[in-house]
């Protein structure tokens, strides 16, 4: 019980415990007097509640300055390539509000249930940053934070997206989930126009693929930093259009003299009208240097489109078509382009709990099919 609620309870008890004695001493003799006595008692209770801490306003119990949250998801994959059950992610958020202007946000994640030497899983610090509000339009973010790019990189709690597994385009091209250490500023340029700029640690890839280049801010090389900027428009309800660009001098952190600078461009749109939503995303890396060009990784691209429809409040259906290619600079992409289609449904027994099902069919340079089941939550 909150301290204010406890105090209110005790003070209310004291008022009510005196009431019978007051009533006996000044026993009303008519309905009018009884009505007056009730009104007086109501005033006393009201004053007691006001004294208890909410000042007579409607202020509900204040949340604690320290906030605990989290999410988790269990996946079952039944594919031609094999079947697997995995508690993919167990995540705890801890936030703390030092003052109205200064806040901490952190996220600690355990992947694949068990971590340690020889185990499948790992324990990762995915976010740990301080936000300081400078003014109405600017918050300075310092620490370890998610790169402002794509649709799921920053918002990926299981109840907010369709499909048991996250989409492969953002996983393999962007690469989500992607966090770095550094400093940034975010806020609003005008109503509906959001911005982010950040200077962070960069990728360190040995094969020019972005996903393997995430150092996860673990004694990471900081020879070459990354510069990220995003503009996002949400000026119409249910609509988001955003574009991100990131520049890095060298995504091998100067370990490969044949590698040059690298540029990521990503753009996406989300349109939600009533029960219908369409999401579309495009992302592309452009890598300079003879090294990436020699293996066809000077261009890496991907896109997906995902229409969905909420049949009723608790049930939604979707289809998602994905294409991506981490070797798009090859002379022929016939053998490198990958395709995946998912069709499925989400069921939310509670707004923060979801059960998922989807059929998966891969093509192009990969070949697999089957179905996935999942359960997820957030709090």
């Amino acid at each position, binding site marked *: 019980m*909150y301290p204010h*609620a406890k105090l*209110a309870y005790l003070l*209310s008890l004291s008022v009510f415990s005196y009431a019978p004695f007051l009533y006996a001493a000044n026993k009303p003799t008519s309905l009018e007097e009884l009505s007056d006595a009730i009104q007086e008692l*109501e005033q006393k*209770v*009201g004053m007691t*509640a006001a004294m208890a801490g909410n000042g*007579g*306003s*409607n*202020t*509900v*119990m*204040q*949340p604690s300055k320290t*906030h605990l*949250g989290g999410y988790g998801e269990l996946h079952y994959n039944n594919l031609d390539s094999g079947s697997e059950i995995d508690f993919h992610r167990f995540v705890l958020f801890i*936030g703390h*509000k030092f003052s*109205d*202007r200064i*806040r901490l*946000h952190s996220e600690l994640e355990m992947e694949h249930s068990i971590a340690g030497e020889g185990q499948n899983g790992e324990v990762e610090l995915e976010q740990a940053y301080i*936000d300081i*509000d*400078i*003014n*109405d*339009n*600017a*918050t*300075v973010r310092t620490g370890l934070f998610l790169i402002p790019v794509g*649709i799921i990189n*920053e*918002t990926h709690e299981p109840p*907010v997206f369709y499909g048991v597994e996250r989409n492969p385009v953002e996983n393999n091209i962007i690469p989500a989930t992607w966090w770095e250490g550094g400093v940034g*500023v975010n*806020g*609003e340029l005008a*109503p*509906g126009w*959001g911005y982010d*700029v950040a*200077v962070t640690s960069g990728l360190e890839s040995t094969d020019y693929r972005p996903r393997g280049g995430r150092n996860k801010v673990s004694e990471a090389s900081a020879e070459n930093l990354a*510069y990220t900027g995003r503009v996002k428009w*949400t*000026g*119409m*309800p*249910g*609509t*988001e259009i955003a574009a991100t660009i990131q*520049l890095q001098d060298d995504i091998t952190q100067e370990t490969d003299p044949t590698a040059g600078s690298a540029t990521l461009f990503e753009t996406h749109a*989300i349109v*939600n*009208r*009533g*029960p219908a939503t369409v999401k579309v995303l495009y992302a592309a890396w452009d890598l300079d240097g003879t090294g990436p060009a020699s293996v066809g990784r000077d261009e890496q691209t991907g896109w997906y489109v995902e229409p969905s429809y909420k049949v009723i409040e608790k049930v939604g259906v979707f289809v998602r078509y994905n294409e991506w290619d981490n070797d798009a600079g090859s002379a022929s992409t016939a053998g490198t382009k990958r395709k995946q289609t998912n069709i499925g449904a989400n069921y939310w027994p509670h*707004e923060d709990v979801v059960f998922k099902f989807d059929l998966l069919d891969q093509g192009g340079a990969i070949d697999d099919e089957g179905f996935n089941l999942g359960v997820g939550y957030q709090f």
Partner: protein
Amino acid sequence: MTRFLALTILCLATTTAMARDVYQQPQEFITQVFAGNPPQPQLLWITKTLNQDIQEILGHELGVLRIRYWQHGGKTAWILEETGKEQLITTGLVVNNGKIDQLKVLIYRESRGMEVRHPFFTDQFKDAYLQTNKQLDRSIDGISGATVSVRALTKLARLALFLHHHVNAAP
């Protein structure tokens, strides 16, 4: 590039300093709603039965003993709060003859999702009314990344409409 970024950060950080959270004080909102002459506030005590209905709307207890509101004719005004992801969102709501006349975010304390305070979002609630299942008559189009704040404001709109009906139906 580094110079450009530093300059951008500097420009943004040195613009007029002001309190980030408070867009309008609740008392100013009430005064404005009633054209500078607000009626005396009234108290609605949260009975056990009422609390059950409120819990059905919010998904949790309200956590107060009573709610203060302002009424003039068929118009009621409410200052209500709901927790978003982590922090309270203070909202001013006006209900006129059973329909939302105004929904305004007065104090926003969350670190993300502040787009919900803009009229292009809150205008969706204009003229919304409550159906018998305590849901709004319309769906509210959300804002990506602000799902929880959108949900909180939708709940407060439903609550204000419900309480408006309650105080007007009371004998």
